[in-house]
């Protein structure tokens, strides 16, 4: 029973990271109907930005603190937001009115560009991520053993999820985003600056990816230029599982994927953990093509 609760918790904390990355995926898709495959690489860049900032602010591991953590997190998010805007500006904007497939392939190109660019300029060997918050402090909650970093991921995921939901549902800019997602031509007729709204969408999505990258690197302290590949894929699956375009759906999908993967990995069939997780996705989509919380849309042909 203790093991069961521990595994459940392990799954939830892994799922929280998937959820955090999935939020950015799902938001960009929800607004633009476009899967930004470079999301996993922005996640990687976020981790590297934090790595270099930490090396700069905290030479030889000088006293690390919460203030420093927040500063590094915010700066990394800001720099990645700029990167997201830059990518949108240079790569996606010229293709705005092209077929969706063109943009999709271009996104894969951007993703490979960042992976191999990272390998060339930073080096492909893994680096040890600095301990921004010092050594993890063990926390015992009944039979469940955890630490402050894992709890931090859960808290930050929740905060960002609610902040994102508030932003999209309650602010003027969020309203404009939703308008763009409904009908991009009509929204521009209503006086909405589409370019600006789309740029903001990318900025927010990239900032979320960066936050995911920093927290991921703090929990699993090795980083390399290909680190975004698998979490990016898993987060994409989580977003689809929950219903892509749906913010609570992304969180739910991430948690379910994390829990399923953890229970598979801890069982006698641990070799098949990814196969089981992805098999579940196939099975679910057979019965609910729109994902758990998504609405299945019928496309007119």
């Amino acid at each position: 029973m203790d093991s069961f609760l521990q595994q459940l918790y392990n799954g939830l904390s892994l799922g929280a990271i998937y959820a955090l990355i999935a939020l950015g995926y799902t938001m960009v898709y929800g607004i633009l109907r476009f899967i930004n495959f470079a999301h996993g690489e922005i996640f990687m860049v976020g981790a590297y930005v934090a790595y270099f900032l930490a090396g700069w602010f905290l030479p030889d591991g000088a006293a690390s603190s919460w203030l420093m953590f927040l500063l590094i997190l915010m700066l990394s998010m800001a720099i990645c937001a700029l990167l997201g805007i830059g990518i949108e500006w240079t790569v996606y904007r010229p293709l705005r009115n092209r077929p969706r497939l063109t943009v999709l392939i271009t996104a894969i190109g951007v993703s490979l560009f960042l992976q191999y660019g990272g390998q060339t300029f930073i080096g492909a060997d893994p680096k040890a991520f600095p301990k921004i918050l010092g050594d993890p402090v063990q926390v015992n909650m009944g039979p469940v053993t955890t630490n402050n970093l894992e709890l931090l991921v859960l808290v930050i995921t929740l905060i960002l999820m609610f902040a994102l939901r508030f932003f999209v549902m309650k602010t003027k800019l969020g309203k404009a985003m939703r308008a763009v997602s409904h009908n991009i031509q009509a929204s521009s007729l209503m006086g909405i600056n589409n370019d600006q709204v789309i740029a903001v969408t990318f900025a927010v999505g990239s900032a979320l990816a960066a936050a995911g990258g920093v927290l991921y690197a703090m929990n699993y302290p090795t980083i390399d230029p290909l680190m975004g590949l698998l979490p990016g894929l898993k987060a994409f699956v989580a977003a689809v599982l929950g219903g892509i375009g749906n913010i609570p759906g992304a969180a739910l999908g991430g948690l379910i994927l994390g829990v399923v993967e953890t229970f598979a990995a801890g069982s006698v069939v641990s070799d098949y953990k990814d196969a089981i997780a992805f098999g579940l996705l196939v099975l679910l989509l057979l019965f609910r093509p729109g994902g758990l919380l998504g609405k299945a849309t019928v496309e007119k042909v």
Partner: protein
Amino acid sequence: MNLKKLLFSVVVAASLIVTGCAKKSEADSTVIKIGQFASLTGNIASFGQSSNNGTVMAIEEINAAGGVLGKQIELITEDDRSTAGEPANVVTKLIHRDQVVAVLGQVASSMSLEAAPICQTEGIPMITPASTNPEVTEKGDFIFRICFIDPFQGQVMAKFSKQNLGASKAAILTDVKQDYSVGLSNFFKQTFVELGGEIVAEQSFSSGDKDFKAQLTTIRAAEPDVIFVPAYYNEAALIALQARQLGIEQPLTGGDGWDSPLLFEIAGDAVEGCYFSNHYSQQDQSPAVQEFINKYQEKHDSVPDAMAALGYDSAYVLVDAIKRAGTTDPEALRDAIAATAGFKGVTGTITLDENRNASKPAVVLKIEGGKAVFNTTVEP
């Protein structure tokens, strides 16, 4: 195609032919070409860079001493980027384009297993410095190694866990993507059970994974006395960290795949009190080892790990064989390498057996104060 484009293609084609011819005529020049493939970048780059540093150092020393057979040695190194599929490409390139007389490489067994059949078919001798999976040299009579093999390493750690650590229950966490790890796990299990021990949990993961808490939670519930983790340093470090976070206090043990400065950098205190088997110990006071360490430190500003020592020895064993063969003819060279006996290397005395494997003792190191400290030697 307009005229300009046509003209351009003709010029390009002609220049390709010219350079191609130039390459060919180099074959009987005044240098002996030796090829090396290594993971200089990627997931296991720490190994590739170390073994490459060792190999390069040996070749430089040999050249400074006048080379071999009156010729200088040219070492051509290719990076396989730790990527499956690449060793086959780069070794084919080394053999066909660069026309090397022999191939040195690799550390990871999966990588050597890709290259070995190619060297065997082409009839080019290959010496792997540190691939311990038995299958590597089973690929044919052109493939050699100068390190011990997994059955031996698995036995060493099983014996050590049972007899020196007094463990009766062991758990195993295997990297199913690495032939090296799977091999070590099997032989550990076999010997540990033969010695009267019990395997209480067997879990697995794939290289590149970062979360091992699920597997470790299952292992924790099985209450083993020792946990055998035959992974490479990158994953081993994360496993150690997460095991300690879950409150697992038993010692972890591993193989030579742990030997990298990154293990200590990433895992820190989490690997204190853990053990791993290795090819040589830096605390070995014999003059050959100390001289090697001093020379290496002068050049690279770091203490050489086992991969550097093996890379160094592999180059010397090859050159020794070229000297004895008196030619670089592949078959004569093959026979000369096979006849290597009592060669005094940094990693011990190397004698190749009839299966082209080196029979050498292994050392067990204990991690204390962020360093691997010599614990005991286990003879074959």
